[in-house]
């Protein structure tokens, strides 16, 4: 590692190293190390991909004897795949919509008014982002039993929205802070109310940020297993995360190829959504709320 490091000092940044990378052109060892790590991260996914195309897939990872789409065809039935995916879509889109609306309303006064109330509220909300959600599932189950809300999709949406809200409020307020107040003032002079100015001036200007929050919450809800697992009981309402688990049971007589095919079909939408957001807003988007404070 040290020899190429010294050599590179003689020829500082040859341009190809790119901007922001101070003078090292010693990519060799770093490249090798990264490729090895990359392989380690890809290996656990290998089984998923290979098994999905293998008619006789089992636990072991192997190149399928004959590539087949039978597994995909077998799971693409309304009861097995489409209904659960539709439920996932309802839950995730519902959660993201409720979260976004509540977060925008909450962020407006927090961003636009100065008050002693703001800072303690924002820190209390931040504490909410730290809450280990799995720890409150037992009491939440108790709450849902008392209010007779078990197995209710709308109630599950409201709970998932509440868990997503703390992070969403922080992100939304940061995006709203970036829109100058002076732009709204013109609208007020013309007699627009604050809410009208919010709708016609502020929201359109922060629509990219709102998209990030929506997709971020959507991805989290789509992948959530534990919450619907505890709160939704009837098969007809379960999202894909739960139906895949109950259908394939726990490692009993499992059709591994179909399990893999189902997993891939269920994962694709969020992988695509993430790719869109990461491209648009930089891959550190998810952190803009919490880490930067």
């Amino acid at each position, binding site marked *: 590692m*040290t020899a190429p490091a010294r050599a590179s*000092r003689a020829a500082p940044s040859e341009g190809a190293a*790119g901007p*922001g990378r101070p003078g*090292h052109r010693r*990519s060799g060892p*770093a490249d090798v*190390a*990264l*490729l090895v*790590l*990359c392989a*380690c*991260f890809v*290996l*656990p996914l290998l089984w*998923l991909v290979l*098994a999905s195309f293998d008619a006789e897939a089992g*636990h*072991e*990872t192997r190149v399928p004897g004959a590539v087949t789409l039978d597994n995909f065809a077998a799971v693409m039935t309304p009861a097995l795949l489409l209904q659960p995916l539709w439920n996932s879509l309802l839950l995730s889109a519902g959660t993201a919509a*409720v979260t976004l609306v*509540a977060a925008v*309303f*909450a962020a407006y006064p927090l961003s636009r*008014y100065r008050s002693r109330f703001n800072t303690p509220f924002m*820190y209390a*909300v931040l*504490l909410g982002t*730290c*809450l*280990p959600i*799995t*720890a*409150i*599932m*037992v*009491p939440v*189950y*108790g709450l849902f039993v008392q209010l007779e809300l078990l197995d209710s999709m709308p109630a599950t949406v*409201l709970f998932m*929205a*509440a868990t997503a*809200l703390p992070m969403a409020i922080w992100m939304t307020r940061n995006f709203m802070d970036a829109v100058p107040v002076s732009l709204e003032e013109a609208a007020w002079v013309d007699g627009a109310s604050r809410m009208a100015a919010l709708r016609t001036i502020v929201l359109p200007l922060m629509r990219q940020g709102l998209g990030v929050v929506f997709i971020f919450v959507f*991805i989290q809800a789509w*992948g959530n*297993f*534990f919450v619907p697992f505890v709160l939704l009981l009837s098969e007809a309402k379960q999202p894909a*995360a739960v139906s895949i*688990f109950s259908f394939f049971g726990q490692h009993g007589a499992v059709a591994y190829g179909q*399990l893999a095919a189902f*997993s891939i079909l*269920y*994962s694709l939408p969020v*992988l695509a959504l*993430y790719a869109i957001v*990461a491209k648009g807003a930089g*891959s*550190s988007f998810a*952190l803009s709320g919490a880490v930067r404070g």
Partner: protein
Amino acid sequence: MGERGLLRYLPVLPALLLLLVFLAGPVFWAFQASFTNTGLTGRNARNPEWVGLENYQRLLLDPVFPLSLGLTVLFVAGSAVLGQNLLGLALAVLMRRARRAVSSLVGTAVVAAWVLPEIVAAFAAYAYFSRDGTLNQLLGGLGMTQPDWLYSWPMAAVVLANVWRGTAFSMLVYRAALNDIPVEVAEAAQMDGAGGWQRLAFITLPMIRGSIATNLMLITLQTLAVFTLVWVMTAGGPANASTTLPVLAYQEAFKFGDIGYGTAVASVLLLIGAVFGVGYIRLLREGKR
């Protein structure tokens, strides 16, 4: 002046209600229920009795609870503090030195494990560590022994699986932090003859120590709450050998129907979470000063 006062904070109300009813409410209910003998079904579900500290006494006497607490510490320390944190930092540092194509390739692979729905990641990890899974096939190919990971080494398997699943977060935090370091600083050190390791130890790490602390707090909190990965891979077994606190709380409350005892376990988890949450917020406030 007319619209001053509480009225202009009216829009906060929907969010506030959601947070109070679905987050703050259950937290307080958890602490309260942990002092009762509330059951999932039967007489104790309808008319729970106040039992004082009985559940907590049971926690201390129950051999599974200290085991579970220890396993949780092991899980968090091994997979988050050591695994995700160090690997994330190493990846971020290496990615600045590698060719752009290589660094975006590894970035995609690491992030993919993170973006995948947790149940899918858990299935993949289960297949990877199973008796005749990918890992043992590789070890066999190298002529090494192939243990039954999920049976003989369940904690090692879930720790490694969680490193695989969660490292992306630390990597992204550290990439952002390293990008914020002015180029001149590294260049000046290089002029003064500092080698790569020296620059890392005396310049880079001290400059990003705020991010390191924040990251440690956040991944500790995230890892503390991991349920699905462990549940799918080992279900806490064999014989409680991988029963972390979330798994224990779930089992006591839902499998054995003892909500009171389950919430006592959950309350301990909440308290640990609160300690780290408060620590995280203090760090952020200090960072602002």
